[in-house]
């Protein structure tokens, strides 16, 4: 949701399908490299991660790479807190995100988990 909000304030429309790997980067600066980095960090292919790290570092610099690794680490953890405690999505957030959750079929995650 904050990705879309970020785009609105900058008069840019990011393609949210990038979130599910549907498009390359979604229009965010170096988006393709960020998506590849996220996938490599959560994957098990160390060679792929080394390439992704080098490519992203060349694009955003060492400070940017550190921030990218920090964000990936934090969300890899916060997802676990959310899933393990069974918190619901707030009504306001649910309404605000209903359109792209439907478009990207994101609700399938919740359905599968609560069965």
């Amino acid at each position, binding site marked *: 949701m904050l990705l879309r909000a970020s785009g609105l304030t900058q008069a840019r429309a*990011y393609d949210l399908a990038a979130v599910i790997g549907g498009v390359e980067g979604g229009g*965010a600066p170096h988006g393709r490299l960020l998506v590849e980095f996220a996938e490599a960090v959560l994957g098990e292919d160390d060679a792929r991660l080394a390439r992704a790290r080098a490519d992203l570092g060349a694009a955003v610099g060492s400070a940017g790479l550190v921030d990218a690794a920090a964000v990936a*680490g934090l969300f890899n*953890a916060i997802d676990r807190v959310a*899933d393990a405690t069974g918190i619901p999505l707030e009504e306001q957030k649910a309404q605000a995100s209903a359109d792209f959750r439907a478009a990207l079929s994101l609700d399938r995650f919740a359905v599968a988990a609560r069965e």
Partner: protein
Amino acid sequence: MREFYAAAPIPIRDDLAAAHGRAWARIGKPGTWWTGEARVAIADETRRAPSCALCRARKEALSPAAVAGAHDRIGELSAAVVEVVHRVATDPGRLAERWFRDILAAGLMAEEYVEAIGVVAHTVAIDTFARGLGLDPLPLPQSRPGSPSRRRPVGAKAGPAWVPWLEPGEAGAGELYGTSRPPNIMKAMSLVPDEVASFFDLVAHQYQPAAAMRDFSREYRAISHAQIELLAARVSALNRCLY
């Protein structure tokens, strides 16, 4: 604690290194429901879970419940705690409330469960950061002697989450939330307030402070809000996390 990353091949922000130092040292200290020794053991199991044969088989199965067996484990943690740590570490997107209820039925208190989740989350946040940068995982923290405080927030009650939580306005909530209206992710571990305080210290330094999250008028990090949110959203999608 800055020495954690003194040998890193690229500079790590001082505030981030310090936050990791605080979080890592805290894992080794007695918590609210677990001893320091048990907390370090939970961190250790978090790291070992990805190589557990049962966890790997479950992850590949259509339903994790379809695969029976015992976890590869070390130490003295109970089977129920190891089940929690391994499942949360390796397959969080398919946790179900029935599974959670079974864990409680096996003898784990909700308070113990929440604190264990907190230790797993801290460990995953810091270890994933290290993996992202190609750094060796930090050595496990030294456990400190002492007893857990066993302080349950008086105002914690059952709500819409699986675990009881502390709503704003309840006794003890002001210390945790201040005057802000907390999102559900902040209330998630409020049954053990120290886990919330520590985890949101990580949030502020690994992601952004609360005030910066929606301040799109300037950038607070070396990557932009849009880049941060794209990365965060892709990670959550890979974890199959709707929240």
